[in-house]
């Protein structure tokens, strides 16, 4: 009955005022102009519409979320600190060391950047899929993965040993060549970190594993060069 009255009322006042009121609603008004308020006194349908509109607006703020997260700022702070450090290193490197220490470095850095860029592009074109669902041939089986992880572990062990031997030379680098090796190793470590993050999210991706292995090899080679060249430099 009330609906019938409302409909009749709306029909009887279905003029510019009702349309204007509809326009006002579509404008997202939160307070009624005087003319619209006067219209509502004579038009029950529009008055009900306005009432319902207000109820939604009043209830909406209840959807605002608050919760304690004391660990969030420290987490953000830490990630920002890493990012700032990386940017500083990059600017320093690009501005001075990169020009100073020749083409060999530029080629290595460019290769690493290309690998990462290629990897990024590859990831965009080949979004991660569940290996168990589609059995994609680019994904590794459990047994192959075990073997690769054993190889990676062997590389890491070798790299650890070399790192221990090379550490005193690199940390106390006085010659430009050793300082440049130190920067190169930092860059490689950063690339390894990024790749490891990708691998952690998708352990069965053969492409990622291959890239990681290549970078491990590059680190191993660089450490060997440090030990070899370092003895001449010092």
């Amino acid at each position, binding site marked *: 009955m009330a609906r019938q009255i409302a409909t009749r009322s709306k029909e009887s006042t279905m003029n510019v005022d009702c349309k204007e009121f509809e326009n006002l609603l579509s404008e*997202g008004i939160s307070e009624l102009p005087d003319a619209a308020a006067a219209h509502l006194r004579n038009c029950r349908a529009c008055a009900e519409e306005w009432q319902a509109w207000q109820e939604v607006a009043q*209830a909406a703020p209840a959807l*605002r979320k608050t919760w304690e997260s004391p660990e969030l700022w420290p987490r953000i*702070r830490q990630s*920002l600190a890493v990012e700032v450090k990386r940017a500083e290193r990059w600017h320093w490197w690009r501005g001075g060391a990169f020009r100073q220490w020749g083409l060999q470095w530029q080629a290595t850095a460019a290769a690493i950047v290309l690998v990462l860029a290629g990897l990024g592009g590859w990831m965009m074109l080949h979004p991660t899929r569940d290996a168990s669902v589609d059995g994609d041939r680019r994904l590794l089986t459990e047994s192959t993965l075990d073997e690769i992880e054993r190889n990676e572990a062997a590389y890491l062990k070798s790299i650890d040993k070399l790192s221990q031997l090379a550490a005193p030379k690199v940390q106390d680098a006085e010659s430009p060549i050793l300082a440049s090796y130190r920067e190169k190793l930092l860059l490689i470590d950063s690339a390894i970190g990024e790749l490891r993050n990708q691998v952690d999210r998708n352990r069965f991706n053969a492409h990622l594993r291959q890239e990681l292995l290549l970078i491990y090899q590059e680190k191993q080679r660089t450490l060997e060069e440090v030990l070899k060249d370092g003895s001449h430099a010092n």
Partner: protein
Amino acid sequence: MSLPPKPAAIAEEDWQHIEALFRGSLPAFERLYQEHGGRMKSIACNLMGNTSDAEDAVQESFLKVYRSIRSFQGHSSLSTWIYRILVNTCLDLKRKQRRQALPELANTQETVPQPQGLTANHPLRLTLEKIVAGLDDRLRNVFLLFEVEGFKHSEIADMLNISEAASKVALYQAKRELRGWLARSQPAARNQL
């Protein structure tokens, strides 16, 4: 690398803050977090659906602010620019999640925090939350930013890269849908307001 010259529209104090952010000053970022972190979390939670993804989105947004502060041109306020980054980050993450369709996402829904005002299990809030979640993305984003978070249409237009008129139309459509759903699904809840 340095910042471009200060745009005329930006106040000196804001510019100093921007310069500090550009230099990677952690106290400057902390100030940003203190001023906007709470609202950023709420927006992200409503867009992402759970606190864990929301916090990830906020963290990622701060990194993006640092990486792209140089491109801030002062066409909008710093805060609007930051919220724009946040909203885009959330939308990107959601797209990525949909593409990857990770099964564990279904389990993250339980970590939705207590709301302000109405109690967690208030029928109207629960109904509204459910209906809002079912809205088309475009309508939901505008509704959340305008009615829940209190942004102006001009700010929403800037954040979502749409016109003010489009923002108003989307809000109108969202409220029309919500009003219809609420009337049908929870007449008792409406009376409890």
